[in-house]
């Protein structure tokens, strides 16, 4: 597999071809939504905005939809039950490295022990065309999480090197796709340009984690009783916004929805949030994380320790979406980890 260089005009042609031929499935791309950006089905290459800072919602929604039907059933003496798996092929264009790291965590959670057909069948059929983030959001801290650049999790990775995009080829699938486009072989000079652009982008991150990411678990281990959790949680609305925008939040609820004609119904799963007050409540009324500071602490431990220890990927990729979404301005894991470290 040889890395390539593609002119911006030819990239547009490549994207338009993908949309027209559906060679890699439905094309989803990052596009402007008022003054912000979000992923959506692409009608043409002109809609694609690879120069964006952050997508409102991470691309996980295409593999782990907000609401997803998992069973359909008909009532009766013996109910008829069918699993529902929507595994249409998709090609996502413009995924930032930190969001790719989020998808890799999903693969570890949903593809490891007890693999989940609903999520993994979509993942297996999908193509990920990433783009390096050169204009990070002011709340992002991916540079200090080591997630601003990735060397895995993509089929193709684009880097804006001026008039052209550098195309890092990640998989054979990506290789065969890009071969259909008009490209040049990347030279050592092109690769130097890519590396410099990436390095310069790291300096643009405004929020810094004041430790190495692999120091977070030990920091948390030593600070279960930290006052920081209480101080921060004091103004928490328990609204769950931080979780709803998070690329690494993997939890869900399962609910039944009987049809209006009462002949059958569906079972669906939908995003759930450990910051919501009833997340750990059992039917008897016992709530194992009744207080918001317990929930706040749990989220921070998931981000900084639990997921890492279980799945080898940190539960935070430094995208900053939680910090953007949080009305109380308490959600940034970097800020909490820094405060705990400083309080020591």
């Amino acid at each position, binding site marked *: 597999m040889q890395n390539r260089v593609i002119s911006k005009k030819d990239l547009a042609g490549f994207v338009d071809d993908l949309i027209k031929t559906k060679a890699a499935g439905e094309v989803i791309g990052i596009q402007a939504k008022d003054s912000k950006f979000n992923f959506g089905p692409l009608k043409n290459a002109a809609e694609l905005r690879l120069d964006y800072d952050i997508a409102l919602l991470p691309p996980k929604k295409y593999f782990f939809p907000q609401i997803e039907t*998992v069973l359909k059933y008909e009532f009766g003496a013996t109910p008829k039950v069918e*699993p529902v798996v929507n595994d249409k092929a998709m090609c996502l264009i413009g995924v930032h490295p930190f969001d790719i790291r989020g998808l890799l965590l999903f693969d570890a959670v949903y593809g490891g022990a007890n*693999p989940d057909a609903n999520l993994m069948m979509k993942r297996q059929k999908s193509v990920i065309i990433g783009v390096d983030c050169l204009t990070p959001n002011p709340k992002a801290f991916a540079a200090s999480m080591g997630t601003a650049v990735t060397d895995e999790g993509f089929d193709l990775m684009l880097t804006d090197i001026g008039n052209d995009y550098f195309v890092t080829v990640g998989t054979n699938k990506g290789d065969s796709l890009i071969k259909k486009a008009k490209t040049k072989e990347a030279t050592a000079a092109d690769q130097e340009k890519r590396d410099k652009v990436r390095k310069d982008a790291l300096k643009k991150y405004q929020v810094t984690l004041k430790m190495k990411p692999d120091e977070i678990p030990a920091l948390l281990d030593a600070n279960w009783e930290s006052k920081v959790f209480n101080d921060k949680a004091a103004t928490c609305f328990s609204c769950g916004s931080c979780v709803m925008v998070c690329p690494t939040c993997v939890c*869900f609820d399962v609910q039944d929805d009987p049809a209006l004609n009462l002949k059958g*119904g569906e079972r669906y799963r939908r995003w759930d949030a450990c910051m919501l007050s009833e*997340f750990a*409540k059992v039917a008897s009324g016992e709530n194992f994380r009744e207080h918001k500071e317990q929930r706040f602490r749990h989220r921070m431990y998931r981000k900084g320790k639990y997921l890492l220890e279980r799945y080898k990927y940190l539960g935070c990729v430094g995208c900053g979406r939680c910090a953007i979404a949080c009305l109380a301005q308490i959600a940034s894991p970097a800020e909490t980890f820094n405060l705990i470290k400083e309080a020591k």
Partner: protein
Amino acid sequence: MVMQLSAKQSLHLPRIAELIRVEKLSDREKVFEFKFDDGKELGQMPGQFVEISIFGVGEAPISVTSSPTHRGSFELAVRATGSLTNKLHTLEKGAKVGIRGPFGNGFPIQTLKGKDILFVAGGIGLFPLRSLINYVLDNRKDFGEVNTLFGCRSPQERLFIGQLQEWNTCKDMCFLETVDRCSDDSWTGNVGVITTLFPKVSFDPAKTYAIVVGPPIMYRFVIAECLKKGLAEDHIIMSLERRMKCGVGKCGHCQINGLYCCQEGPVFTYAQVKSLKEAV
């Protein structure tokens, strides 16, 4: 990402089972016996749980109360508490439900073999424990001395009364019962919380494993009593309750610190629980 998956492998897909018997245990609890339509066994180990579905209502995690030594069907004993369990209580013989599982680690049978056992059940903690008690009685020669303590709040809340009677007269184990309080003379047995039974049993702490299942408040006192008697922390085994929505380590609801109650649990040793700050 090399595994080949198909929709049929959906983690959410239950097997259909028929309700073949319902028995009232108390005002709030019933035991339900099920048999799979495909004739297969559940294949559970004592202490494991299933997710039971009533289509149109939902799913709930319920521990299996029958022993795997009982073949051909399985029993779930259920208190009517939430929307699923209340609906379940209205079902009659012949009704069909969905079953996923068994899930969870179950009690450590291999560790317990050849050892003395002290069972301590509080209230409906008897439901999961009954599976293991009957398993031990059915494989009696594999285990040493067995003591069983059962406590509930009042004589009216005693469960599986026929079974309690059997255990009471059974020569294979020492069985003691108490109720927290009794305001009339319908009850001539022990009165007092379950820890008041401890002075009445003798066991060798070095050879004994205590298996304790009950409400969170009971754990605090019973564990203290076990430790006082000289049991090692990893010889005290408990089963914890959480909201296990998926049963397969994905949904996050049952998480206790970094562990998933549906995967590493619901059975834990006290030595483990002690290091889990959110456990009890």
